């Protein structure tokens, strides 16, 4: 349970300056024997010399390359013509480069469960935007109440909410599905609101916990001053608390967005048929029914990954914070 929203990850950026000392050194350890006089050079250059040996950084870059190769191979393959994908490895692309967009055209028109892949892309958007926005705002309302409103049993109820983080979502699947399929739930025909509701439920304990940490630590003078001026709770929440909480809302919101976008289980259980399913569902279906049609699978996988990759590359700082804060979800 990484409990703070501003994590020390930013230190990565800050510590970069210290590393300019150089990458020489060669030997990993053991140069400072007990008889040597203490070396009192500033730490930055010395540590850089000792730890960041060439050997170490070669290993790191090798691991980084190893980590990238599978994704890179998929990306390269998605642009190769079908006949080439199926008869030679993508690493031969560089000796015989030929590029095509046919795979992408093919996969977007490809039908899964009677509807084209583009529909699943749109479903992912339909599911994800409200599935991320609604729980974050509900949690912000609750976090405000737990921080700045007085009511009976407030602190104990908050402890109870936090304790609910223990519950795996698997504990709720069967009863919730029965509820969504019953007459008590108004929307039997269209499963998407059920998915929104399910994601909102599962997001609640962690989001309330994190936002309470943030909203509760806002300066009380600001909020008291607004109270004295006669502002209602709703006005304070909308005009003061929400604007001040944008960094926290963004971090948790991005994490929740990616969680919902990448989710398979919740949609599969509550979404009903293919009509309401996101792209993850379509991909799993294609792996099952067209497991060797790599021209479709490579392009399709890349289409499902494009949004998370854009988020990762453009909002990395928020993404990292949200991920670290939210990594115990579910």
């Amino acid at each position, binding site marked *: 349970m990484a409990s703070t929203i501003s994590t020390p990850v930013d230190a990565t950026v800050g510590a970069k300056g210290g590393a300019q000392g150089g990458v020489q050194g060669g030997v990993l350890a053991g140069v400072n024997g007990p008889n*040597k006089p203490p070396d009192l050079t500033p730490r930055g250059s010395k540590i850089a010399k*000792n730890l960041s040996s060439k050997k170490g950084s070669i290993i*790191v870059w090798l691991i*980084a390359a190893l980590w990238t190769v599978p994704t890179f191979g998929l990306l390269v393959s998605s642009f190769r013509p079908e006949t080439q994908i199926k008869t030679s490895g993508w690493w031969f692309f560089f000796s015989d480069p030929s590029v095509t967009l046919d795979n992408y055209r093919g996969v977007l028109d490809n039908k899964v469960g009677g509807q084209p892949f583009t529909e699943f892309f749109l479903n992912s958007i339909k599911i994800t935007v409200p599935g991320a*926005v609604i729980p974050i705002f509900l949690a912000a309302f609750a976090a405000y*109440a737990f921080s700045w409103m007085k009511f009976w049993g407030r602190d104990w109820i908050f402890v109870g909410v936090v304790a609910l983080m223990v519950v795996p979502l*698997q*504990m709720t*699947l069967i009863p919730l599905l029965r509820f969504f399929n019953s007459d008590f739930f108004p929307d039997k025909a269209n499963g998407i609101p059920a998915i929104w509701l399910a994601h909102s439920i599962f997001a609640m304990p962690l989001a309330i916990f994190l936002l309470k940490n943030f909203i509760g630590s806002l300066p009380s003078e600001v909020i008291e001053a607004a109270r004295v001026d006669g502002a209602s709770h709703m006005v304070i929440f909308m005009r003061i608390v929400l604007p001040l909480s944008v960094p926290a809302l963004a971090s948790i919101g991005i994490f929740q967005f990616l969680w919902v976008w*990448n989710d398979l289980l919740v949609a599969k259980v509550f979404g009903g048929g293919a009509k309401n399913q996101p792209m993850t569902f379509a991909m799993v279906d294609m792996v099952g029914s067209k497991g060797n049609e790599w021209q479709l699978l490579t392009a399709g996988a890349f289409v499902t990954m494009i949004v998370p990759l854009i988020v990762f590359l453009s909002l990395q700082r928020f993404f990292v914070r949200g991920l670290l804060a939210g990594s115990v979800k579910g």
Partner: protein
Amino acid sequence: MIEIFKTFVTVALGLGAFLAVMVGLYWLASQLPEPWRDRARVMVFVGPALVLLVGGLILPSLYTGRLSLFTGPNANKWYGFGNFRELFTDSDNLIVLRNTVWWVILVTLASTVIGITIARLADRMRGEPYAKALIFLPTAISMVGAGVIWNFVYATKGNDPDKQYGLLTWLWLKAEPILPGKQDPHYWLQDREFFGFHSSFLPGLNTLFMIVVIVWIQAGFATVVISAAMKGVPDDLVEAAKIDGATDRQSFFRIVLPYVKGTIITVATTTLIAVLKVFDIVQTMGKGGQFATSTLANDMYQRSFPLSQPGYGAALAVILFVAVVPIVYVNAKNQRNIREGR
């Protein structure tokens, strides 16, 4: 075009309905006379969340606990602890438990160790943020996407080494001159034996290859968190040890590692909980748990829904819950220690 429009309408309807409900409730609360008005306003703020938590988490969990004692396609036949007895005695079910245990042990160990290693080696090296970003990248994509990526790496087609497009199979067949014995084309994800060795305790080769995928996803998370913690080790501590004659290795194992111990525990427990619930990878790479690849969370889905055995599925969910509680307890205690300066 019309479909895109429909998408926007759905999103707008969803958000609009949410907004309308919140505003409407607040307006209703404001119409009440004092002292009810203030109480009602509190309920508008905290009520919807509490309704979701009670109705969506607490009551369903209790209901699932009850269901686990029943059997039949509608889970309406009393079965006592029969589901749990099956879970721990039937040989197929034991395979699921065995796989889950191996998943948990191997992924947690491997990704934590890899995280520590990279965090140490990359510390203050040139281009550190870029190398770490590359290792961190798989965390962003879905497990389904990761499953497809690795299905492609493991793919095998026919017998001709020159026509292989799966990287692993190609390397395997091309390595014939330097490896002992004959290299036959191998369907990695269908091999349920442990390197040709049949055992009820060891995981199949296919499970090991899936474990690699989760390590690939989780290692970046471990790296980033542990690396951040290592940057927080005070310089004077390390420096003092150096002056006393400690080697790099000694100061790392005796000072840096103990200093970030709390963070490492957090990373390990977080990974553990995530791995216990692994589902997407088995769906994508093991065709929903075939070839003896199923795990607890995957079996929970399969039994509850496609196979219509909700009682047994509920029992699996209960086991999952029981397994998570002590881990969260350790984690919470560890977090408190960190906050109190241990």
